[in-house]
């Protein structure tokens, strides 16, 4: 509210004051254009990650080794489709259209999580994706349940509940393998060797090289830096790997008594940036699968619209 005594706050200052007081921003509230753009970028990127993320796990639904595992995996991938839906809806509250967001994904303009550009090669990958990838996703996402934009925060509450369920399921897949035959334990170790480093990359570039972090922290879209979350993840996962009897593929990994945290080796940032730029093993295949599904589905979407229009016209005549 404006007062007569003090000079009126600008819209931008009022906005920041609400953020600082932890008051949620809602769709009809005024917001700086850059805040809106940052959120659309982040939420649509997140929605795209759910959509593309269906592919590496979908890859194993038809080959799941038991009916129970098949059922769990299928419902997990279905959950991801659901997350995609509510995230696209959250982005739509900011004025973005789903068609445009998808067009940006298909043209390569919009990004999705790079982790999905790695292949799923064995059944143990279903364990690692749940245990490590969903584990990393949870660390990234739990703070988003308190993010400043209301619809995003509310969508994330639901997403996080399901993700932590998925993470437990992934851990259980790993545990079953590690307690099984030598061939199964080898399968688990081999999968961990491939997934460990790409998962550390999920937290994004080093803080010193993350251009968006400072502003996002100020707007409370983000609440922890990339490096803080990466450290948290390592500290959480190393004891779990030890429990499973698996070796984390990092010779530099060592408990630091002074910091009460693990020291760990340097991520291969060259690989990180290459995959971000589209040069990973599966980038082209993932995008091609999405584009193909969209193009081959065009006649279906057109038919549904045409039928709805005919129906509406008939009802109009009948009325």
């Amino acid at each position, binding site marked *: 509210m404006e007062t007569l005594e003090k000079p009126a706050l600008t819209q931008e200052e009022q906005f920041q004051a609400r953020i600082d007081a932890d008051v949620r921003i809602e769709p009809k509230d005024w917001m700086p254009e850059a805040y809106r753009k940052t959120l659309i970028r982040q939420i649509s990127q997140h929605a795209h990650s759910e*959509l593309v993320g*269906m*592919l590496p796990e*979908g890859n194993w*639904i*038809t*080959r*799941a*080794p*038991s*009916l*129970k*595992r*098949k*059922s769990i995996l*299928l*419902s997990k*991938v*279905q959950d991801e*489709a*659901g997350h*995609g*839906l509510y995230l*696209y809806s959250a982005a739509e509250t900011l004025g973005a259209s789903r068609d445009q967001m998808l067009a940006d994904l298909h043209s390569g303009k919009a990004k999705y999580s790079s982790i999905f550009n790695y292949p799923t090669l064995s*059944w143990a990958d279903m364990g690692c994706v749940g245990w490590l990838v969903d584990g990393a996703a949870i660390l990234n996402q739990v703070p988003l349940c308190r993010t400043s934009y209301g619809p995003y925060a509310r969508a994330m509450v639901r997403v996080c509940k399901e993700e932590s369920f998925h993470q437990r399921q992934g851990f259980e*897949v790993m545990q*079953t*393998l590690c307690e*099984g*035959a030598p*061939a*199964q334990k080898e399968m688990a170790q081999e999968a961990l060797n491939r997934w460990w480093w790409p998962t550390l990359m999920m937290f994004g570039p080093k803080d010193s090289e993350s251009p968006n972090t400072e502003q996002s922290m100020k707007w409370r879209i983000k609440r922890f830096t990339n490096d803080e979350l990466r450290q948290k993840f390592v500290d959480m996962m190393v004891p779990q790997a030890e429990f499973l009897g698996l070796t984390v593929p990092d010779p530099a990994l060592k408990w630091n008594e002074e910091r009460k945290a693990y020291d760990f080796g340097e991520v291969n940032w060259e690989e990180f940036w290459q995959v971000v730029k589209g040069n990973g093993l599966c980038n082209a295949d993932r995008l091609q*699968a999405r584009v*193909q*599904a969209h193009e*081959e*589905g*065009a*006649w*279906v*979407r*057109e*038919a*549904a619209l*045409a*039928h709805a229009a*005919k129906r509406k016209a008939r009802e109009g005549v009948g009325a």
Partner: protein
Amino acid sequence: MQAAPSESTALATYSAEVRQLLFTYVVQLADTSLILGHRLSEWCGHGPILEQDLAMANIALDLLGETRSLYQYAAELEGKGRTEDDLAYLRSAVEYRHPLLVEQPNGDFAHTIVRQFLFDNFHYPFLQQLKSSPDERLAGIAEKAVKEAAYHLKWSSEWIIRLGDGTLESRQRVEKAIASLWRYAAELTTPTATEKALQEAGIIPDYAALQPAMVAHVARVLEEATLPTPPATTFGLAGGKEGRHSEHLGYILTELQYVQRAYPGLTW
């Protein structure tokens, strides 16, 4: 919902012969929902729109749930210590007993919809009758599955209507799918010797009695879809329910059974 009967009371009343017939039949039902669910799950991540991706995964999950209850019951009927996974993962193509329709490839979305519609149009009225089976286990499984099947039939019927009365392209595609899949429909309601024996024993529904409702529903949906009724004299393809399959099944099982075959005897 009735309480699940204890295993001994449900099974003890059957003669060895009926038990064998029932085992064969319950496996047939389980194979049917497993294979159709497998086909639907191939769409996962590749659907024409996210909402329909979800719908197909949902139907696949329902069918998989039904599959598991049925295999578990079959394993008990057999009484040889086999599990649901042994039945799904360690039988060869000729031992599979589902109708040919459900193993047909997804094709385009129109083919998937027509295949689903033909199946749902049988599955739903069938389960409605199976609910009153004197076999309490089958009745219980039907009781749960029929609610899901009602939704499946609604979904596939609505899509037949949308595609038939949508655009010229969707109409041509759905007509083509009907032309290629309709000949598999008759097998669903043509009883095998096993089915006849169980029908005569009053354990499973008489398929002839399901026909009027099935024909009426197809007629209503096709009319609303402005699609012509396919000629009734089309030569029906059958054999799947007796283990004579199309070439497609071998590839389905190669994928489905891969891990279990590559690493025999392990727990996953």
